[in-house]
């Protein structure tokens, strides 16, 4: 099994850390992983994205142009990466701030309104974990136990008290994600 994922949004939305937690979760289940961020000026105030690959085999290129899954958190990233999902692949997006919704018919599209939900929960910081929960519902590439282990590994000790909130956010994401009709 190889899962090639792009996560894209604004800098500060937790795009890179979501990727890191996924990568750690992959390690917890003894997979090969790679995490390749876009780095440089484009991150400052613009879009940030990270390519994460989880695989049972040695990973070749950490840079890709087509993905099994795109997790999209803003309009610019949707415009850029909707077309980069492989036919039959998966696109998950947060509807917040999206005016041109995805239109492809040959991929599976799901929506998770994580920004709104994080606001309601009063936990803006764990917005990305709601998205991650949604992804794991649709495509359980990593087991929840391993995500929690991954969280422990990737978060510094001083943030470990926030793990229960992260877990709650993941569970909420699992509940609120829904398929977009027609895709």
């Amino acid at each position, binding site marked *: 099994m190889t899962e090639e994922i792009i996560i894209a949004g604004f800098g500060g939305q937790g795009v890179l850390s979501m990727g890191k937690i996924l990568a750690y979760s992959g390690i917890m289940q003894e997979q*090969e992983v790679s995490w390749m961020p876009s780095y440089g000026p484009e991150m400052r105030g613009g879009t940030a994205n990270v390519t994460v690959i989880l695989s049972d085999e040695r990973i070749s290129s*950490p840079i890709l*142009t087509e993905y099994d899954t795109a997790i999209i958190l803003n309009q610019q990233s949707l415009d850029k990466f909707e077309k980069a999902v492989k036919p039959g692949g998966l696109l998950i997006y947060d509807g917040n701030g999206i005016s041109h919704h995805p239109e492809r018919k040959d991929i599976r599209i799901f929506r998770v309104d994580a920004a709104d939900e994080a606001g309601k929960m009063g936990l803006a910081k764990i917005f990305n974990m709601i998205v991650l929960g949604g992804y794991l519902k649709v495509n359980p590439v990593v087991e929840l136990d391993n995500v929690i282990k991954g969280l422990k590994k990737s978060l510094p000790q001083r943030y470990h008290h926030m793990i229960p909130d992260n877990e709650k956010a993941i569970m909420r994401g699992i509940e609120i994600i829904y398929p977009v009709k027609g895709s």
Partner: protein
Amino acid sequence: MGELKLMKGNEAIAEAAIRAGVDAYFGYPITPQSEVIEYLMAEKPYETTGMVVLQAESEIAAINMVYGAAASGKKVMTSSSSPGISLKQEGISYMAGAELPCLIANVVRGGPGLGTIQPSQADYFQATKGGGHGDYHLIVLAPASVQEMADFVSKGFDLAFKYRAPVMILSDGLIGQMMEKVILSEHTPRWTDEEIIKISPWATTGKPATRERNIITSLDLDSYRQEQHNIHLQKKYKEIRENEVEYEEYMCEDAEYLYVAYGSSARIAQKAIQLGRDKGIKAGLLRPITLYPFPSEAIRRLSQQVKGILSLELSAGQMIEDIRLSVDCQMKVEHFGRMGGVIHSPAEALQALEEKIIGG
């Protein structure tokens, strides 16, 4: 088995340096390799192993600090990215001349000039053909994974001390910035003063009554002695070429076409080969692990088997010259590569093979 971690390539170099018992790191920050010094400053090895970590006032200061510490037989290293490495070239040439072991990591970015901060492989000529002035070579190692970023630190020091020569790790912004899992080796203690005297009897460790002074210099105004010194250096490079070549073959057994690529481009080539095999194109990869010495024999051998060779580099085509020399220009060797910080995709790499080698 050592400790398993998820790390950036740059962090892996830094952690591996602490674990390899390195005595000192002197550097100056520059993207895309600043995590090396950031990681060292955060880990504070000066409080544990006693390793010195110092941000110098410039790249030139840093390389001359390396010169001084290396002269006393210490395990010492620096790292930088392309423009910073250019600044260090005077010091590197001096160290090659004075036969000082050290490790230099270049996490290459696009050039020329200040260029860009994105990945590139356009420093191949500089790294493998000398770089500074005079007749010399560095031993050049090209990691293609975060694991190799870690492993090549102690490997680099082994070679540096074996041959009394500066060693360069030539990587790029992609390998430096990406995270992969890495198995870290156990801690090796730093050498004691007694060990240093034994390992490097040439070092300036203080003159006892029992021997002559040890002098470290690259200057000798007597041309005949300087020529003898050059002959000695050339003999050393020949020995390196005969003994230290390393490479990896990927899907070469039945290959009809061959990619030659190192570092990040080697990773991209592997994916291109997989995509090609889905379409029935049998391609393989020869990945030089040492760029100097260059795996010419292996390329010559594979050239008997394949119909053409594509050199895949993030540059205008530099390594291609060594490939063409390896096959005495007797077969079709073409180049493909994006420049200035743009990274070629696996699909582009496959298309280039189809157009330039198979169809061309």
